[in-house]
């Protein structure tokens, strides 16, 4: 019973960490903006899938929190980009993130009930960990505009909160 979520997690790690690790070159501000925005959209989509599929009150509440927060942050990000006249630029990291997210979504679509809940929440822990790692080590240090850097730093605090929240929910599901 345990092997499936672990295998799924392992697969996610392989798929998920690689694209961000590949981006060894320092990304530009338009690329950073695109990566951060894409990462938010992915989690909103994952949340919507969980709201539709899960029957667990805590899992649905968590998913609603994710949709609400990530949508709010992305609205703020778009406002800032408009103000700075920065057009987000698609890049390999964003494309790899989208690809990995699509694979995860398909995997989760095949699960139901408690198996889905566990897999979704475990992926949320892993995903936020991955995004936070990228923010800390790559995106924040690479950002050259001060306002963009500041928004990313606040984003990091928010997503660290999400990571802890996801860990709490995961612990309760066990």
């Amino acid at each position, binding site marked *: 019973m345990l092997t499936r979520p672990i295998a799924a997690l392992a697969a996610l790690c392989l798929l998920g960490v690689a694209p961000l690790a590949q981006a060894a070159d320092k990304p530009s501000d338009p690329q950073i903006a695109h990566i951060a925005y894409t990462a938010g959209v992915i989690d909103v989509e994952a949340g919507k899938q969980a709201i539709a599929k899960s029957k667990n009150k805590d899992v649905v509440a968590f998913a609603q929190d994710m949709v609400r927060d990530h949508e709010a942050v992305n609205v703020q990000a778009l406002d800032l980009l408009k103000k700075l006249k920065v057009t987000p630029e698609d890049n390999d990291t964003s494309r790899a993130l989208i690809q990995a997210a699509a694979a995860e979504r398909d995997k989760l679509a095949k699960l139901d009930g408690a198996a889905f809940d566990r897999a979704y929440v475990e992926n949320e822990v892993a995903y936020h960990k991955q995004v936070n790692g990228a923010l800390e080590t790559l995106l924040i240090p690479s950002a050259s505009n001060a306002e963009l850097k500041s928004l990313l730093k606040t984003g990091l605090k928010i997503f660290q909160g999400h990571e*802890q929240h996801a860990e709490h929910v995961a612990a309760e599901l066990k």
Partner: protein
Amino acid sequence: MLSKQLLWACSMVLALCLGTAPLRAETIQVTIDKMEFSPAQIDVKVGDTIEWVNNDILAHTATAKGGWDVVIPPKKSASMVVRAAGSVDYYCRFHPNMMGRITVSAP
């Protein structure tokens, strides 16, 4: 209709009485900005009101485990009257990395 007005009048009188009754009850403000409660630690007395002012674009909560739970919508504020003495750690349910502490003394 008349009884409704009477009820309103009575409740106003009651509100006035209640409003003036607790001597020197204060309102202590805690600001939430960029995922932080500020000040993170406050000292209050039983009967005081704590008002959380949320400057963030996100909803937050002030939650004491096994106790109270105050939801503070984005760009809004919410308050709570302190009922019991003691020290309470609280956090945000949505972002558990946000933490605060209230020390409550007797009135």
